[in-house]
């Protein structure tokens, strides 16, 4: 690699200078360097976005952990067969808690493959059964398709708990980013329908409110990796072309609009500092507190949306360590 000196530039596809963009946000230095390794994710071209993510996920999509058994199952969903992937710790003794894992992707992308490594890690570290859901994506399948799929997966998990070695009273729903909206909506619907008991909700940088009217959403138009524009595109796709913020968007689509949060399951929310979605997470935590719901909230400093993908950074390690600790505690995971 001699000759690739500081002035070298590739023929096309300029790599961003580390000091050029985003220098006004005081991002953690390890994450700042990691940004150099993040692909540009442009939601304006959804097929390209999906292809890019699949390609990037390939190396980890086939990962194997000897301590976790993996099995794909097809359920009867509202829109036809619904694929879920079941992760079961091999050394399970007695019923385990379970985590319904709802991936991110702005409602329009992401898949079981993109959360496979995360599911393995959670199953192993928490010692829980993990169920990852291949929910239908917008814009081809707008609201309520994805929510119906997540609800169906939850119902299946609760109904088959014995068979799956799961304790139905210790099922958590875990959602990241757009998956956070789906996780909250799934829990809201379960509360409304007196459906399966959700013991705990774990949210990471959740996208909750199509009204896009918080200070962070207004200010952070050009934060790394996720901008206001990305939020608009996600909501518009999920809401079948209805303008984000329109009147009449139901709370089950945009759970930030839910008025009554009493009886909502205990919840953990992680928010990232330089994330347009930050304040809707903070607001939801506050409203849960006001509704006397047990809440744990952590704003991770100098982070941006999705920065935990830069997993080796100290702040990302704190995020994932805390994630495991919180899930273990709330799900009363066994010591072995």
């Amino acid at each position: 690699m001699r000759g690739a000196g500081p002035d070298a530039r590739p023929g096309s596809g300029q790599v961003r200078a580390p000091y050029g963009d985003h220098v006004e946000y005081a991002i953690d230095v390890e994450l700042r360097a990691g940004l150099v390794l993040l692909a540009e994710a442009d939601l304006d071209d959804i097929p390209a976005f999906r292809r890019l993510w699949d390609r990037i996920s390939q190396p980890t999509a086939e990962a194997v952990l000897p301590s976790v058994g993996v099995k794909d199952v097809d359920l009867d969903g509202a829109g036809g067969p619904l694929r879920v992937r079941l992760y079961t710790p091999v050394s399970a003794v007695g019923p385990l808690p379970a985590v319904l894992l709802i991936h991110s992707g702005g409602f329009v992308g992401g898949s079981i493959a993109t959360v496979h490594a995360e599911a393995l890690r959670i199953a192993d570290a928490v010692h829980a059964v993990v169920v990852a859901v291949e929910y239908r994506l917008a814009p081809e399948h707008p609201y309520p398709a994805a929510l119906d799929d997540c609800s169906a997966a939850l119902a299946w998990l609760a109904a088959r708990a014995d068979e799956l070695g799961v304790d139905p009273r210790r099922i958590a729903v875990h959602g990241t980013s757009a998956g956070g909206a789906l996780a909250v909506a799934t829990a809201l619907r379960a509360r409304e329908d007196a459906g399966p008991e959700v013991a705990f909700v774990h949210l990471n940088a959740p996208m909750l409110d199509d009204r896009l009217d918080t200070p962070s959403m207004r200010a952070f138009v050009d934060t790394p990796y996720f901008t206001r524009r990305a939020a608009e595109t996600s909501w518009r796709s999920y809401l079948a072309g209805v303008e984000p913020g329109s009147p009449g968007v139901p709370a089950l689509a945009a759970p930030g609009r839910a008025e009554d949060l009493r009886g909502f399951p205990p919840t953990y929310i992680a928010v990232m500092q330089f994330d347009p979605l930050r304040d809707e997470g903070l607001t939801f935590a506050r409203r849960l507190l006001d509704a006397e719901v047990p809440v744990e909230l952590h704003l991770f400093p100098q982070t941006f949306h999705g920065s935990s993908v830069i997993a080796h950074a100290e702040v990302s390690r704190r995020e994932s360590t805390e994630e495991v600790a919180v899930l273990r505690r709330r799900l009363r995971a066994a010591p072995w």
Partner: protein
Amino acid sequence: MKGLLIRLSGTDTEAQAALRVIEYFDALTVGQATVEALVRGTAALAECPAGIGVPGRPPLRFDAAGERRHGPVPEPSSQVDLGDGGAVWLERDGGPGPLDELIVERMAVAARALLPAEEPRTRPSLADVALVETVLSEREPPEERTKALRRLGLVPGGPLVVIVVAPAQPDADPAGSAIALLSRTRTARAAHIAAIDRAAAVLVQTADRDGLRDRLAVIARECLGDPGGPGAVRVGIGRRTAAMDAHESWASALLALRFADASTPEDAVADVERLGTTVVLAGVPAAQWRSDRHVQHLQALARGRGGGVDLEVLDAFLRTGSLRQAATLLHMHHSSVASRLARIEQRTGWSFASCDDVFQARLALVGLRLLGAEGEHPAGPRR
């Protein structure tokens, strides 16, 4: 959304991957990462364990997931010595990967920059003039500029702001003035200063250009009355550029300097970015300004009795747009300001109720200032 982390072993061409490696270590260096973060970050980038050894300390090693590694150190797959008995290395099974040589070399460069070898220099200091001149030269080959930057302790891959400091007194020492000025800014990063012609070039590698500019403006104002300080100075702040493009920042700093006026505290520090489009006026030949009748009116005004104060009043009024605010700025009674403005209107034929005339007046003042370096605008502090 999460998950779009490119692995070096994955999707890029070799050239693209090499560029990412360089940018990655530049980011760690410019961001002043800790040594731990450097080693951890290297292991994650390389996707294999990395380590650093420093004389007198146990080896510090991390794996690609960011966990500390302990126990006996295996034979490294790649290693670079840091020159002081220290070394950095990678521990890859099966021998070095295609990018490892670059990775470990860049890790070493970063380590030398980030290891706390001595008290970090946060005070501005006199730099080797030859090194500064090399950095500011457009014609020097990139390798020479890179070496000069490194020897000055600056990061070649980072940003740079060049500031030029010109004392108003012709026999004052420009470098001394610059040091006095910069040391009062309590800049977090070191400033490297060298006298070039009758001004001092200051190289600062900082992410907070705006904050530095604001502090310089405050200090330049305070310095006017401070006998122990640098005295009246003019300061031009250049654009932030890549360190390798420092000549552009220097050129823009010199351009800004032409708009700086030591006699007016507000104008002692000129920022090329704040000046905006005004800088195009620097391209107007002096002869053209001199032959302009509005500029001539102002020169006549300046030569008259109390003319210096008249110009200050005019400047303050045009700057604030309000009689009362100008009076506050000047610590004068508003009726004194009003009567001076009336006299100026009489002498120049301008009516300050007219937007066109106000624009002409501002333009003429800029022209006067640009001519000022040739001594036609009274120099020295008045307040």
